[in-house]
């Protein structure tokens, strides 16, 4: 495992969902290069190399950020806004992966420039398939600008 190099940044507070997500990513052998962050504050610290992640290199960019909206401390919409309003991070691919199917959340996310919005299916099979597809697409298939 290369130091600091990650493919997927998973921002999710529910440990069950984290486990199920990682389980699903394992299908494409993507689970090894995943960094899990448990709330909005931690996520922002990591992304902008502040706080406990102050010595991290900001130039090391994940291939995709999987963002839950309902997060402790700072919610997902705010995290997305910060990412998009900073020159260094505004081109990062962000996929919202949430239980919310509210129109307001969808509209807000797209207005802030989210790359994709996925509602987590309750059924595990469907959920696992969706996560596997996201991992395959963004990590293996998609090409980044830098």
């Amino acid at each position, binding site marked *: 495992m290369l130091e600091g190099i990650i493919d997927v940044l998973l921002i999710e507070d*529910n440990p*069950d*969902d984290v486990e*199920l997500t990682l*389980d699903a990513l394992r299908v494409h052998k993507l689970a090894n290069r995943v960094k899990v962050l448990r709330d909005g504050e931690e996520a922002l610290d990591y992304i902008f190399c502040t706080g406990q992640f102050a010595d991290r290199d900001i130039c090391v960019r994940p291939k995709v950020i999987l963002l839950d*909206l*309902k997060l402790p401390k700072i919610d997902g919409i705010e995290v997305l806004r910060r990412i998009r309003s900073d020159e260094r991070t505004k081109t990062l691919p962000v996929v919202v992966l*949430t*239980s*919310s*199917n*509210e*129109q307001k959340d969808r509209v807000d996310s797209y207005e802030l420039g989210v790359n994709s919005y996925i509602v*987590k*299916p*309750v*059924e*595990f*099979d469907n*959920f*696992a398939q969706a996560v596997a597809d996201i991992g395959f697409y963004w990590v293996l298939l998609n090409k980044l600008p830098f």
Partner: protein
Amino acid sequence: MSIRTKLLINVLLLVTSLLVIALVLNIARNEIADSVRRADFADRIVIGVSDMNAITYDYLMKPGERARRQWEMKHTSLDDLMKSAKFKRKEVIVIVQRIMKSHEDTALFFKQLVENSEKKKHASVSLRALLDENDERNVTQLMARSQIMASDSYLLARESEVTIQKALTWSVWFITITLVIMIVIIGAISFFLSRNITASINTLKAGTEIIARGDLEYRVPVRGRDEIASLSLSFNEMAGRLKDVDASLRGEIEEKEKAREALRIANLYTRSLIEVSLDPLVTISAAGRVMDVNKATEDVTGVPREKLIGSDFSDYFTEPGKAREGYSRVFSQGFVKDYPLAIRHTSGRITEVLYNAATYKNDKGEIQGVFAAARDITALRAAQNALRKSYDELEHRVEERTAELRESEERLTHALEAGELGIWGLDTKTGKAWRSLRHDQVFGYDKILPEWTYQMFLAHVLPLDRKEVDEKFGHATSIGTEWNFECRIRRTDGAIRWIWAQGMPRLNERNEVVSMVGLVRDITGRKQTEAETERLATFPRLNPNPIVETDMAGNVQFVNPAADRLFPDIREHGLAHPWLADWEALVRTCREGGKEANVREVTADGRWYLQTISFVREVKRIRIYGLDITERRTAELELKERTVQLEAANKELEGFSYSVSHDLRAPLRAIDGFSMRLIRDFGDKLEEDGVRKLHAISRNAQQMGQLIDDLLSFSRLSRKEMHMSRVNMEAMARDVWREIKESNPNRELDFRIVNMIPLFGDASLIRQVVVNLLSNAVKFTRDRKPAVIETGSRKEGSEITYYVKDNGAGFDMRYSDKLFGVFERLHRPDEFEGTGVGLAIVQRIIHRHGGRVWADGKVNGGATFNFTVAGKEKNIA
């Protein structure tokens, strides 16, 4: 023989001799014309002969067909000329015959010449010599004949000339002699004729002269039987008659002389009468000259009689033109009477006179002149002038007074008309009255009635008022006071009107009422206005809201009872009352800004009022209306409070929904996920029953997820904003059906669309309805092959009903009210899957559209779902 006959014979002679001369001249002319024709004939013969000679030589020189034919043509033409010639005289005819003979001979000789020339063509030399000789002889003969013809022609011409000479000489002699003889004869006749006539006339002349000198016994001698003789006879007869007349005349003259003497004596008497008259008398001739005057005329003109007579009569008047006019009037009508004129005396004194004049005529009725008598009227005229002057003055004064009176009357009439006042006067003794037109019009008559009485008036008064009116009249007439009242009348056209009347009694010297004069007026309009005013006044009086009116100075002019109750002290304070605080600014914007009223909210006595302050421009008043809005205010406040509460509740609910959607789903996913992982990772270690139970956990978790999703979408419905538009139901049904069919590839489905009328509503919500109803139908026809699903619409009155009908499981109508409840289900989950939210969503959407939804069906007999939307279809068109 008369003179006329003699003259006729003379003329006849002249005419005869002239005819003879003309005859002779005509004979001479004929003779000359004949001779000229002969000479012309001779000329043409000579020319023809010389031409023929020339042709003959041509022929000899060059014998040929052409020359021969030419010769023959010439010969023929001469021949024709001679044959056509016709002459009378014998010696001429002999010569012509001789010429003709020679001419025929030339033809003979020429013929021989031609024959010789023919022969020469074939003849021998000896024969030709012989023939030449023969030719020579023939030519000689031809020439000789030509010579003879020419000399004969000259002879003929010569003879013609002689004839002409002779004819001329003879005719000149004849005419000369005839003229001489005639002049002699006519001269002789004329001489004798004139001598004869002159002698007779002289004798007659001498005779008449003798008789003219008075010798009536003389008679003119009569000779012969001509016109002068008969004249002389007539003259002698006349002289005889004259002699008889002369004798009778002498007798008559003597008698006339005696009569004239008698007349002269009578005239003298008449004359003296004329002369003594003091009036100037004058006779004037038809030519306008004074013929006779009397002494009075001399006196008045100052001109002596000798000068007056023969002068123009009009010279002595101040107005000669007028005098002449009077004079000519006498001629036209025979007389004039009292014709005014003025005579001027030589001293300049004027005498005004009146002329009476008439024409006087002779025995035959012919007008001889005018006799005019003047009368001196100077004194009379002076009296008249004085009288006229005083009359004129009087007239002037009368006119002035009349004008004043008329003006005053006009003013009165105008005043009465302007006030629509009728005027009347009543004689209290007789009860009869005179009236103005307006008076009778008040009682409904177009024109003034012929008669009007007090009783007629009373008959018009309505019975209700009659007694009072009559009593007042009795009172007024008995004590002589004013009669003044208002009452109702029935007009002649039946209309009931209010009138006002007033009468002033007139008293005689014994203080008795003898008459009454007064006015009458229709006051119905005023009465109605009064009633209307009274009625209108009840509006503010009974208004439960306070109304106050002040003038611009702030003095309270009106307070209605409601305002009085509310502000008992407002009359004292006026505009300073707290109710009217800050009125000035509000009134100013009304006055200057043209606004009708300003409205504000004020509190008084612990209550809220909506105060309207108006400036009433027409009467310059400020009017303040108050409307108690305390209840409304309270209600509004309560409503506001409730809205706030409701909004808070809504927020809470939204948060709750969000939590539900987010937080409830996560554990479910975990339950499902870990169940599935247990089966996957440890399935082989579990018993069969354990695996089945894990599947049950997973299925229930999924079911709950579905329930949550449905519940959320149901709750979102009420929050969603509606965007109304025209919805093409048919297209929408097809589209939805296509999706449903794709997700049910194993089903045998028969779908029909029947007359889908467009609908006015929110397209996305209506689509949800269609999706839910069609999905429902597909779900409950699972056991049908084929499943028949029909959708359509029908119009009933103004309402359109849409329906979805299937041949599926149907339902028991007893439970139809449960169909549309949330989570209400009529089937067990193991029969038909579902959460029981689909139809609840349908109902909510239809209710939001103001429509109704209902279902018909029976168990295993299919179901029909119907819905309407509120009467919006008019917007669809």
